[in-house]
């Protein structure tokens, strides 16, 4: 059938082209363009928790993030703040600030006491705002910034006849400033490479900290930036090693995989309660946590091979999840317990876990197409073409059609149309391997009374069930190559440029040589000069750095 072959050829070509295009972004010579990223909701919460402690609650609706080229981390460099979004940031900021200056917290969070709580106090406001501002802006405030915010605090204290209320107002204006909400990269000439530019030390600190911990730089990292340590390879490596050895690395790894696996879509995932009565918000929450635990256990606790996340039978369950999996579990109610699926069980690795199969399904039924597409796009970084226009879908009949009882039969009928076959051929044979799991993630052996056939194929690697698919993904060289590109893009906030192709290839080679150890990959990226190199700024974009408050002559008040 010539049409059929042509469609296949087009689909194959598209896949190849899209895979290559991952590295074809801006090309301005030396590094990539500077990016300005909006803090994610999780990052905002983390910063507030780090600066003010976990007792300060962050409530409110955040502006939705958008996904670009597979990651929210890259969408963060595309978004702004809408009017309704700023309304919410304003409310959140005022609420956080009110808690910080409240009687319950002021003694621990404000490092000084005003001479008169009913009046402005320049010195105390300066001390609090300079110290807090340094953590929020991820660099010392300029003298102008500090003076401006102290004036806000003083004016508001006069208007409200209360020092703490005034201080809260000033803090709120910092929390809704673009200098807090957006991570800006500042470029400076690279003294070691004439004609090239790199991030300045504070931008480096942020790049590193959000990459490894999904958090703003801690005081030690900021101090290293201030001293210039991050501009030396040994100083940088010292900080990277400290951060990788920290328990906070787990938070960073979880944030990366939450983004890569698209878990944000759980916020709006719908499952029909009549068809899947076991699937509820608790199951959805626990399912995400299960997959993240499987990953962090394999990569961090056991220091294992990245590819093993696709085949490991070790996982963690709660009683409610055990009910979905229909396995016995001894664990206190609501608590997590380790569980290992036995050899021969179709459950192996994250692709067969509830989070993956439920997320990539329709609300009322499974979808080999969506699941196959997700394996290609999410785990192998291959772009599947969008469905063409003017396609007749008549051949796919409803689920009650006695002629096509299973998804395999319905899709086979659909794929007799050559226009459809090309794309379905690269998705369905993968997803059919997961047909033993329904849309809610539970195991099943038949559909409409007919036994389910879970055989399939991934680029020539044939398998008979989900465990076989897991092995095929594990053995596919695209899987580790994909996570390298994703991790670099996640850290950079953009696709690598053509100039960075060699760097990405060297990262992939090192990852392979080192036995696919994920923390080693993160370290390799984080200590690379390429990770901090930026293309020459546009004319006029670089101004002389403003004088930082810490460099300004000290006033009598600020010396107290």
């Amino acid at each position, binding site marked *: 059938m010539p049409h059929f072959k042509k469609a296949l050829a087009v689909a194959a070509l598209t896949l190849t082209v899209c895979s290559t295009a991952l590295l074809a972004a801006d090309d301005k010579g030396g590094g990539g363009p*500077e*990016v*300005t990223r909006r803090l994610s909701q999780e990052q905002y919460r983390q910063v507030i928790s780090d600066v003010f402690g976990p007792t300060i609650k962050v409530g409110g*609706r955040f*502006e*939705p993030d958008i996904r670009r080229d597979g990651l929210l981390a890259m*969408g963060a460099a*595309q*978004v*702004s*703040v*809408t*009017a*309704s*979004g*700023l309304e919410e940031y*304003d409310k959140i900021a005022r609420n956080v600030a009110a808690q910080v200056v409240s009687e319950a917290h002021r003694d621990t969070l404000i490092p000084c006491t005003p001479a008169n709580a009913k009046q402005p106090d320049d010195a105390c406001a300066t001390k609090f705002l300079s110290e807090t501002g340094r953590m929020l802006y991820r660099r010392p405030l*300029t003298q102008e910034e500090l003076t*401006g*915010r102290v*004036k*806000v605090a003083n*004016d*508001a204290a006069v*208007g*409200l006849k209360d020092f703490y209320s005034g201080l809260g107002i*000033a803090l*709120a*204006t910092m929390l809704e400033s*673009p*200098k807090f909400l*957006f991570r*800006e990269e*500042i*470029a400076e000439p690279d003294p070691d490479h004439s004609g090239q530019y790199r991030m300045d030390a504070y931008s480096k600190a942020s790049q590193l900290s959000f990459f490894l911990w999904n958090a703003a730089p801690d005081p030690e990292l900021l101090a290293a930036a201030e001293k210039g340590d991050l501009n030396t390879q040994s100083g940088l490596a010292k900080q990277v090693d400290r951060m990788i050895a920290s328990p906070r690395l787990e938070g960073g790894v979880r944030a990366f995989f939450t983004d890569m696996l698209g878990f944000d879509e759980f*916020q*709006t995932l*719908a499952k*029909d*309660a009549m*068809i899947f009565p076991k699937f509820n918000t608790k199951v959805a929450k626990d399912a995400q946590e299960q997959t993240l635990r499987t990953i962090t256990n394999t990569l961090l606790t056991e220091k294992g091979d990245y590819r093993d996340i696709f085949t490991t039978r070790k996982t963690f369950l709660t009683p409610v999840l055990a009910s979905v999996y229909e396995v016995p579990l001894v664990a206190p109610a609501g608590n997590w317990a380790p569980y290992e699926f036995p050899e021969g069980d179709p459950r192996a690795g994250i692709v067969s876990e509830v989070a993956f199969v439920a997320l990539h399904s*329709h*609300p*009322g039924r499974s979808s080999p197409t969506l699941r196959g597409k997700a394996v290609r796009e999410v785990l192998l970084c291959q772009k599947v073409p*969008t469905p*063409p*226009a*003017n*396609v*007749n*879908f*008549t051949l*796919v009949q*409803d*689920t009650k059609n006695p002629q096509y009882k299973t998804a395999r039969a319905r899709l086979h009928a659909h794929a007799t149309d050559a226009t459809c076959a090309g794309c379905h051929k690269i998705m369905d044979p993968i997803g059919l391997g997961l047909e033993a799991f329904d849309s809610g993630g539970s195991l099943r052996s038949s559909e409409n009374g007919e036994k389910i056939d879970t055989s399939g194929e991934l680029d020539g690697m044939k398998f008979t069930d989900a465990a076989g698919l897991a092995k095929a993904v594990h053995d596919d060289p695209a899987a580790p190559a994909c996570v390298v590109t994703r991790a670099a893009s996640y850290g950079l906030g953009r696709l690598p440029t053509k100039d960075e192709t060699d760097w990405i290839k060297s990262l992939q080679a090192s990852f392979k040589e080192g036995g696919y150890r994920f923390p080693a990959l993160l370290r390799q990226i984080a200590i690379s000069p390429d990770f901090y190199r930026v293309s020459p700024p*546009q004319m006029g*974009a*670089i*101004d002389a750095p*403003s004088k930082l408050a810490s460099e300004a002559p000290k006033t009598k008040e600020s010396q107290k």
Partner: protein
Amino acid sequence: MIPINRAVNRRRVLRGMLGGAAVTVGLPFLDCFLDTNGTALADGKELPVVFGTWFWGLGLNPGRWEPAKPGKLEAMNVELQPLAAHTSKMNVFSGMKAFLDGKPNGVHFSGVQGMLTGTVPRGMTADKPSVDTLIADVIGTRTRFRSIEVCCAGNPSHSQSRRSGAVVNPGEVSPAALYTRIFGPEFTDPNAADFKPDPAVLVRRSALTAVADDRQSFMKTLGAADKARLDEYFTSLRELEQQLDLQAQKPAPLAACTVPGKVGETPIGTEIEIVKTNHKLFAGLLAHALACGQTQVVNVAFSDATSSLRKAGGTQTHHEYSHEEPVDAQLGYQPTLAWFFGEIMTQLAFYVSSLESIKEGDKTLLDRCAIMTATDLGYAKLHGLENMPMLTFGSANGRLKTGVHVAAQGEPTSRLGLTMQQVMGVPVSSWGTDSMQTSKTITEIVA
């Protein structure tokens, strides 16, 4: 053709200098005719115009919604039957399409972008502002909210209102949250007997100046693209400042303004009964918000473009039915799909009735509205972009004729967006790109 940035004032309009036969903006149509409070025309008789969009996914079934003949709108075709009570206050547009110009069809995306932004992007990333934001920049600058968006199917990203490619105005998904946002503690009742500005509001307004002052130092190191993006932030900041300014002033009384009863939490999701419940609550809140002068631009997304609506207990979504349900040999259409369309049009009728139910003198709130519907496809079964259904409701204070069926022959859907802008006072005579570019006002509906 006049340059877009050339100022339009009362004098220029009166002198008929908008230029070109395409300009059909009539004399009483521009915002510059409003008095300084924006609460009535200079002659004191009319309240300000309102613009809105109402979006649903998957179009309608071809042959089942188009009126039988062009001209006066009389009997409704079957899928528009739920709207029959509004025949005299609505218009129907058939035969318009989105032109791809060789660009790939971003399914469920290209069509709505063409309709609402006048541009079919090359890919799945939009790059132009939607018509409602262009209009809001003209008529929405003196209200507490420049615009309000709601998304009835639970996802704020279903909103079709965008200021630029990546800057989408997110929709409220919870009627309870929308109630608090509009009628919560920061609401100032325009009909309250006494008014005393809250000193805290004045302090907050003053403090925001410091954030505005961050602009210069923050922007100087940014590249051009980031500058444009951050400009959006500062535009939003100005809107926030304006909100506080308005809270510090006594609002003009609005006789039709009443504060609705508090709305409690409701379930959120894509199951159609849940969506309908939330839509009805949203409809009531938006009508009250308009009557109380809180905004002049409202955007409703009843569903997402790839309509995820579903019946409780059903294995398939509205979208899946569109592709997979066989055409009934006897009926000649997909019956379940048609059922969904019936539900959606009934909800649209409810929305219009909510606006109609608020009496403002001898008129209704609907009479000062121009509500434009939008959808993503003409024939969902084929992802078709031909003959995309479009409707308008309300006469925008007499600026629009109603009760008209405009039957076009393969012309761009952007014609309606252009006409809406002109009627709302946006100084534009040509809009859109490539084959979606048009300077052809739909003169049949301009009064």
